[in-house]
């Protein structure tokens, strides 16, 4: 297992801390007055997404985290779990609802997702940033109301609820940002 010394510390490094994988999102060298050299880092948990502040001294080091990402296709639901397939190896990892997190609400058959593995265990999954989805239910909009700053709730084919402008109707296709859950635009075919 490789080790990163403080002189290797930089943004984007994937490291292990107390048995969990983190990504370094910030690293600043500070040396106050007559004090010792310190590396002030921000570490984001690859599992929980929470951010830790940690300060290291110059002879400290961190274990590299064995993290890899791969593109996999969503196949089907098996009980509570979600089954994916690696298109190269045909491996079929199963992810629990906890591992899926918020991404579950964007899944439809055949969707390509990015799965993060830590020590060969899947730990998180991201849908593509943008998806085009069909609206399966929307309150009818009041006739003549074309204001774009008024929104209503619509349900899309994957089951997610999205705030959409008043002019969106059932059967329309809309583009959404899966990171924020926000409506982007109506898609005309």
């Amino acid at each position, binding site marked *: 297992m490789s080790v990163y010394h403080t*002189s290797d510390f930089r943004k984007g490094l994937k490291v292990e801390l107390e048995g969990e994988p983190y990504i370094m999102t910030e690293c*600043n*060298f*500070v*040396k*106050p*007055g*007559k*004090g*010792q*050299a*310190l590396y*002030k880092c921000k570490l984001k948990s690859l599992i929980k997404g929470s951010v*830790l*502040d*940690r*300060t*290291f*001294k*110059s*002879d*400290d080091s961190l274990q590299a985290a064995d993290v890899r990402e791969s593109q996999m296709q969503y196949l089907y639901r098996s009980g509570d779990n979600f089954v994916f397939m690696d298109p190269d190896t045909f491996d079929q990892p199963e992810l629990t609802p906890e591992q899926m997190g918020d991404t579950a609400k964007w899944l439809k058959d055949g969707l390509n997702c990015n799965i993060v593995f830590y020590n060969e265990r899947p730990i998180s999954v991201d849908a593509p940033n943008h998806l085009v989805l069909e609206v399966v239910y929307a309150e009818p909009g009041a006739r003549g109301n074309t204001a774009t700053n008024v929104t209503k709730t619509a349900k899309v084919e994957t089951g997610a609820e999205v705030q959409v402008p008043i002019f969106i109707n059932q059967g329309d296709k809309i583009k959404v940002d899966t990171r924020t859950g926000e409506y982007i635009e109506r898609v005309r075919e």
Partner: protein
Amino acid sequence: MNLPHLYLPSATIDVLKARSALIQQARHFFLDRGFWEVDTPLLSAETVVDAHIHPVSLTIDGDHRFLQTSPELAMKRLLVAGSGSIFQFAHAVRAGEAGPLHNREFLLLEWYRVGASLWELMDDVGKLVTSLMQLPHVGSASYRQAFLQSTGIDPLKATNEELADRCQSAGLSFVAKDRDDLLNFLWADQVEPTLPKEGLYFIYHYPASQAALADVIQDEDGNECAERFELYARGIELANGYHECRDPRQLREWFIRQNDRRVQQNATTLPLPDYLLSALEQGLPDCSGVAVGFDRLVMISLEQQRLSDVIPFPDDRC
């Protein structure tokens, strides 16, 4: 391949010309006030002994030498020899210091004014710096006041356990045993970020345990404190000054203690600076001295973001 052109300077020629003009302006500031410019060696058999300053040592023609981490020792030997008030632009080299605000080799502007108190020196520093950059003087605080205000902790009274607890909850990844290491971490983590960003701010009267080569006195509350100050400009540490300690015994003890701290952190010990200590036996005139990080001064004055914007060839391309 899209390699950066590392043979080119990282600073623009316009910035380097402006840097040169600031150096000339600073020279005139001192010459107008009766100082003269000295020029001391970069290679010396002795160096400042400090727990957290790591000099580069080398062997040249069989002789052990250190690249100077500041021109302090040589300038004090000149003061003992009767130089009167002196200034110097000196390159200094410190190992292990690299970042947007650190380059291992950097330019110091250091000066000593004979007969000046700490307050007079702070006044001089303020005058010089405001003549080189458009920044207001926004105030000053003692180390203790600033520490108390930002952390709620009294740095003179808190126990080591209280300091260690606070360090741990702030994310210090290791257990520091040394009280000054705990104080320094809290200073960097919680005090420095709260110092005013809009101008010049002085911090004075450091704990006696952080005196370095400054004199130790009693403050108005009867606590021992170091006659030392630091200047922050836009929240960035820019200068470190002392009303100089003239007692060779006190300094010898300080250096020995620093070597003990170096041993604790597995750093090599450094030889006691005998030339300096012998000179002090002869008698250093009452004086105050300060070192200004000139690259940082140029950076702030020209509204640049990192040292590499104002240095022609920083560490990554020299």
